[in-house]
């Protein structure tokens, strides 16, 4: 036994030696950042996202896109006198861990803002912690309207946290816009709803339901599938019995793609529609069929030079396009924080007394990002209310309608 382990250890060791050789990644000419003046020190942009567990693909996309934005700012000397870094904290998609991560960032005097979170439930614990320290939080992915406008977000909106902003569209925008398209433009009056029961999907579906009824359509049935399901035959058979003209799916592409494919093979040949959670090439790869629909925030990316620039830069830095669903939003969130910081510091020095100004500057930030125009309204929501409907046409997402939701 012992001889064996010694031998295998030797083999492993030798392999390591060969692999590692005597190389190094020593960079000539000192640290990155090039010619910028970074004499005043380092400031940190925090990221709170799930970096481990089964949502990590989305979380890592958020983290790396933030790193990209920070790198670019460092290269362009956006914040005079400071070097910027990203500090990414794992929230494990768990509210308690999110609180821990937020506390960690909030006790660091160099943290100027936080990008995150992915999950609305985690945002709920992070918001108050960061508010107490006046640290701006810009979320790339929380779509739950209550986070900004409170429980009665439609009738009596009330700003919840003056440090909380987001660049993504809320459910009460996207859902109704999709409803209008389905009922008025596509003429689908009988709609069945399937959701994954999570905050994003259920919220989206709830807002869609209200608008469909308002426009004279009919919701013929509502079903929930498990977030980890792969077999939807039961749900599909049930929905098929209700003879819908379209199916709206509230959730994300990993389930939506197979659902669409299984619908087709079960003989339910109606279009499947979803929100920006299914607007991803992977949806088609996983079985999304011709004629399926999705809404997404902002104008089509082909018409946005900034979007293409983001994708190219990302690919250059990380080698592949794994920025996932919220990468572009995270990039924009980070840029909002950096932009506001540049204005706040403005050649001076950063200290605790600047935090109020920082919050104001994030609120008044405006710029054109990878997802379109980035600006915040009085509640902290994105003013970018342009939405686009896409449809799967010959194996690709193609935009069919762009506009603003007007009611």
């Amino acid at each position, binding site marked *: 036994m012992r001889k064996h382990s010694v031998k295998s250890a030797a083999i492993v060791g030798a392999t390591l030696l060969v692999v590692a050789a005597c190389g190094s990644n020593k960079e000539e000419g000192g640290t990155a950042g090039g010619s910028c003046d970074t004499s005043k020190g380092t400031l940190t942009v925090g990221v709170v996202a799930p970096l481990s567990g089964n949502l990590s693909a989305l979380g890592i996309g958020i983290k790396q896109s933030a790193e990209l934005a920070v790198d670019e700012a460092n290269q362009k000397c956006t914040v005079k006198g400071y070097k910027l870094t990203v500090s990414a904290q794992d929230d494990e998609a768990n509210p308690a861990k999110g609180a821990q991560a937020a506390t960690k960032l909030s006790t660091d005097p160099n943290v100027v803002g936080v990008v995150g979170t992915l999950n609305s439930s985690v945002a709920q614990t992070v918001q108050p912690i960061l508010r107490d320290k006046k640290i701006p939080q810009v979320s790339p992915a929380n779509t739950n309207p209550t986070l900004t406008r409170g429980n009665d977000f439609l009738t009596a909106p009330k700003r919840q946290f003056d440090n909380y902003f987001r660049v993504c569209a809320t459910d009460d925008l996207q859902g109704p816009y999709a409803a209008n398209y389905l009922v008025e433009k596509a003429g689908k009056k009988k709609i069945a709803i399937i959701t994954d029961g999570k905050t994003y999907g259920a919220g989206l579906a709830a807002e869609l339901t209200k608008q469909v009824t308002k426009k004279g359509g009919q919701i013929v049935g509502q079903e929930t599938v498990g977030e980890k399901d792969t077999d939807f035959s039961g749900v599909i058979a049930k929905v098929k*019995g209700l003879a819908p003209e379209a199916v709206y799916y509230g959730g994300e592409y990993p389930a939506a*793609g197979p659902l669409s494919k299984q619908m087709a093979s079960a003989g339910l040949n109606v279009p499947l529609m979803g929100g920006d959670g299914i607007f991803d090439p992977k949806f088609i790869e996983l079985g999304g069929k011709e004629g399926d629909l999705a809404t997404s925030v902002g104008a089509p990316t082909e018409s946005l030079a900034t979007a293409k620039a983001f994708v190219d830069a990302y690919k250059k830095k990380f080698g592949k396009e794994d920025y996932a669903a919220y990468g572009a939003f995270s990039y924009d969130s980070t840029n909002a924080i950096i932009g506001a910081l540049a204005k706040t510091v403005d050649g001076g020095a950063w200290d605790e007394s600047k935090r109020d100004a920082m919050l104001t500057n994030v609120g008044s930030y405006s710029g054109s990002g990878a997802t379109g125009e980035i600006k915040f309204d009085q509640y902290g929501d994105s003013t970018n209310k342009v939405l686009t409907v896409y449809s799967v046409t010959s194996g690709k997402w193609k935009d069919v309608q762009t506009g603003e939701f007007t009611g």
Partner: protein
Amino acid sequence: MSVLLQQLANGVIQGALIALIALGYTMVYGIIQLINFAHGEVFMVASYGGLATFTLLPDDLKKSPAVALPLMFVGGIVVAVVVAVIMERFAYRPLRNAPRLAPLITALGVSVFLQEAVRVWYPDATSNLPYPKVFPEGGLSFGSVNIAWTGVLLVALSVGLSIILQAYINKSRMGRAMRATAQDPDTAKLMGVNPDRVIVLTFIFGAVLAGVAGVMFGGYLSNINIDMGFQNGIFAFTAAVLGGVGSIRGAVIGAFIIGLIKTLAGQYMPGGTQYDYVWIFVVLILVLVFRPQGLFGEPERVRA
């Protein structure tokens, strides 16, 4: 009416899949009284094994299903068997005489480990992966009831393999050794049966069936994810318990019952599909409380 027929068909296909996994649970439990919690993950790993085999094939072979499909089955089965044998050898065998809780906790650890290993090391496994389209497309249709060819194949494989397995265990010499070990390991050992061999073989049989199930699962549903093992593993375990753990026939019948409960409860019970799991678990609890030996099992013997 057509909805009912469609749901019945769906239930039978799901049952066939669950049956293939449940056989692995029931055989292992029958021989060493271990709930091999990680068996569901063997099924999951097999599915990724099949997918990896396809990805590694040269492009011209990818286009011919007659070659690609059997190779995928082989790939999936090989991966499943290797994982199962390693698991038996290094995780379970050292604990064979440990208190009963120990191997169960180990099984839990193996399950978490396998799932995470695939997530971290298999490319892009963090999200669902599409399964190659080498399976027969289309299917039977009776009016508005559709049954995919893959579903038919799944049922045929499941029923066929369980009949072969049953026959092997009843007729062959090794099968007799297995039954002997299940009944009384000490006496079987005295009679010249090598318990280690029997146990490894049991794990291998379970893994082969899980391998077939894994690849068929991908073919039938066209996508796989790392959670499929845990979920279907629980269903399969429930089926094995329902049928009476240790009984081959029981596991298969139990699996079909579970498949039907899932689809029919989703259709007709209050709460709809969002509570379909709950009904399966309710059945599990009721069976355990009122008939712990299951439908076809013998009452639990108290071992000396």
